[in-house]
């Protein structure tokens, strides 16, 4: 999961600009009106945490750059709909074996052809444990994947220069939807000779390329210019993009106010209450594919069996989500109605059982009393979080809400750093006994991404160790459906069960907040909270 992103529903609009291009899906789209196609757009970024290798980039700082300089089989338009980029077609009969054809005459910016081998070799590289790529787990659905040993993906077969097949170890109907994620980008043959050097100065096939061999000035900025060999749907409408690296969002916001930067995709906490006034129609605040929750570990005392069920429901109903999102977040969060995100296909705010997410002090007290009848409560309800992130305000608010409604002691439990927090949460020898904050940001626009990795038995990010055979069965059924609607129905059914069990207690969806400078137009934020840089025009 990348840190931050967003999506737009078809209705939610990116500020007042009526000219927003929706993904300009045909390769030959013309620039909007009188736009100046040579102007360079500057935007905020952060120093990539890893070298710029698609399979080794899992955070937004590097992700925004990698997405700009590489093109995968598909890309997502603003609403999260996949549109063929390098792919000519992706077909399957059984949702298990996919045949992928690549468009003819696609090249990397140095002229090397993008063919079936470019993809297969890159995926094999990413999946090998010995290469230690942070995006390794994205290849898990493919046959032959093994994260405990270095074994090749036997499910990948090159048929001819522009065709390859992918066999999955189990049917997965939304596999094509995943292919727009950075991990699935192709790599040129040169990359494998010296991946370290390649990661500092990558050659890609995307809409942009590095302006020069020294374009990446570490900790300062990276300069991208249009890649003329790119013929896909993301044709740049500007003369390049410069990502300026900021260590703090405050600095980027000051630069925006002084017109020193064109577009920013993050508003600092200090400006959350003023930015819509400061920027007017140039402010952006819309829902995104980020889900926030907290989890009460199954090893926590008083949170097991029937008693635990009642207590989790009571706590959920004791939280006044609308007030907290308004007061603490100034409306930049949207109270949760399910376990996914409102920007995705398959989202609904009317799942049965979701009344448990509505503030109801009386009912919460009754449920808590029922649990006390099973075994009387003792101790303090604690909610763990990492103090190096912006969490203290809402954690205290949630704890207060619980404390006031249920009349028990409740408090936040900070740990100094994120590293320490994750160590506590994932410690297998000494499971965490308090509640802890959890969150998820989708890597690809599918509800499955919000559910299976988090709540399937033994799943990689199932930090609460939740397990329910009925939920597992629905996940498996959904994955093998051949019709999207049927799969969505299965995931909704699974969520109805989750809303009863509450393996995590949904809180809210984060909005993407951002803004742009005067003189900049066609700014639209994608479903994943990242602006569609190629569509932005200036002057």
């Amino acid at each position, binding site marked *: 999961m990348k840190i931050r992103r967003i999506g737009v529903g078809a209705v939610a609009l990116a500020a007042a600009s009526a000219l927003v291009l929706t993904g300009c899906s045909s390769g030959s789209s013309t620039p909007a009106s009188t736009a100046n196609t040579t102007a360079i757009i500057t935007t905020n970024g952060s*120093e*990539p945490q890893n070298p710029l290798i698609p399979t080794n980039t899992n955070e937004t700082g590097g992700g925004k750059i990698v997405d700009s300089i590489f093109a995968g089989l598909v890309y997502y338009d603003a609403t999260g709909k996949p549109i063929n980029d390098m792919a000519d077609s992706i077909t399957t009969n059984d949702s298990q074996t996919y045949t992928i054809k690549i468009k003819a005459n696609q090249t990397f910016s140095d002229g090397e052809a993008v063919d079936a081998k470019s993809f297969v070799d890159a995926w094999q590289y990413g999946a090998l444990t010995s290469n230690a790529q942070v995006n390794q787990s994205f290849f898990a659905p493919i046959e032959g994947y093994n994260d405990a040993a270095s074994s090749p993906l036997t499910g990948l077969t090159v048929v001819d220069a522009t065709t390859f097949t992918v066999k999955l170890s189990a049917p997965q109907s939304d596999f094509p939807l995943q292919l727009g994620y950075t991990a699935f980008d192709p790599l040129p043959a040169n990359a494998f000779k010296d991946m370290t050097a390649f990661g500092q100065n990558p050659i890609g096939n995307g809409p942009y390329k590095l302006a020069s061999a020294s374009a990446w000035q570490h900790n300062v900025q990276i300069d991208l210019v249009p890649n003329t060999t790119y013929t896909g749907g993301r044709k740049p409408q500007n003369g390049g993009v410069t990502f300026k690296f900021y260590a703090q969002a405050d600095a980027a916001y000051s630069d925006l106010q002084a017109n020193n930067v064109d577009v920013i995709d993050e508003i600092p906490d200090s400006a959350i209450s003023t930015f819509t006034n400061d920027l007017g129609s140039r402010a952006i605040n819309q829902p995104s594919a980020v889900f926030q929750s907290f989890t009460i570990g199954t090893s926590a005392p008083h949170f097991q069996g029937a008693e635990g069920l009642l207590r989790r429901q009571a706590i959920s109903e004791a939280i006044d989500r609308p007030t907290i999102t308004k007061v603490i977040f100034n409306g930049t969060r949207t109270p949760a109605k399910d376990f996914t995100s409102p920007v995705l296909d398959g989202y609904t705010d009317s799942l049965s059982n979701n009344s448990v997410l509505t503030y109801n002090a009386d009912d919460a007290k009754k449920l808590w009393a029922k649990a006390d009848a099973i075994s009387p409560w003792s101790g303090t309800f604690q909610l763990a979080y990492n103090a190096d992130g912006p969490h203290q305000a809402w954690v205290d608010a949630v704890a207060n809400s619980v404390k006031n409604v249920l009349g028990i002691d409740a408090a936040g439990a900070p740990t100094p750093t994120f590293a320490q927090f994750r160590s506590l949460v994932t410690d297998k020898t000494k499971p965490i006994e308090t509640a802890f904050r959890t969150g998820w940001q989708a890597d690809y626009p599918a509800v499955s991404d919000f559910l299976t990795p988090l709540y399937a038995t033994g799943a*990689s990010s199932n930090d609460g160790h939740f397990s329910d055979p009925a939920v597992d069965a629905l996940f498996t059924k959904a994955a093998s459906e051949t019709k999207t609607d049927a799969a969505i129905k299965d995931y909704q059914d699974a969520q109805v069960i989750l809303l009863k069990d509450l393996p995590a207690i949904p809180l809210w969806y984060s909005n993407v907040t951002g803004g742009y400078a005067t003189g900049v137009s066609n700014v639209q934020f994608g479903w994943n909270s990242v602006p569609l840089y190629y569509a932005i025009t200036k002057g």
Partner: protein
Amino acid sequence: MAGYILRRLLQAIPVFFGTTFLIYFMVFAMPGDPILALFGDKTPSPALVAQLRAQYHLDQPFIVQYLIYIGGIFQGNFGISYSGQPVGDILLRTFPVTLRLAVIALFFETVFGIVVGLISGLRKGKLFDASSLVVSLILISLPIFVIAFVGQYVFGVQLGWARTTVGTGAPVQDLILPALVLASISFAQIVRLTRSSVIETSGLDFVRTAYSKGLSRNRIVPVHILRNSLIPVVTYLATDFGVLLVGATVTEGIFNVPGVGNTLYQAIIRSEGPTVVSFVTVMVLLYLIVNLIVDLLYGLLDPRIRYVK
């Protein structure tokens, strides 16, 4: 004199080993697994974690990690950051920026601080003295981030006289505003130090003697009063220069200066052992050198100070 300098430089060797060892140990002892933090809220597979731990030698016992690190340094290799950059390169990129910022700040605080302090001292109790006292009290009592934010908003956003953040290559003109912010607090300290030192010196016998000899005020003030008043100021400036060099984390963050403070802060958050240790070690060595230079300056200011051996 040469022997004295040599001895001081030799002292840096045990300091070097001591600090690297201590800092390395502290980073090692930081709770939490930095590898897990690389994956956000996602939990990586155990084999992948093991592979990455091995890559950064995190699977070795502390003393082995330390020896690998020290061994690398003697081959000119400061280790690799998690983003795959040699730490040596990061050092070479960030220290010149911070050094530039520190020198500009030091220039402002020295020139303005000593001039204002001297005038205040010579005109004790007059209007100028009283107003400089008020201004310096205000500056001392304001936290630096308040000065920084206000400065950035007024001069950067509203008036447009300076860039709000530091641009590519950290050119000198972009560094002036952050340097003024950094200098503001020390400026106030220097004014007060210089003032009291000047008042004290002005009352001493040799100054009265100089006046009675008929020397002009233009000669007495700079040569007799100021020179003899500067020792506490120079000591303060040296310490302050050291502080400026080792990271104006807050100011660098607000003005987005790609310098030492900013980079070190990020590295600490990520528990990047090699980066943190290398940075702190270089800081300690710089601090030692600056202190040596100050000790030598004492001799120039006051010939009575002699260096033994």
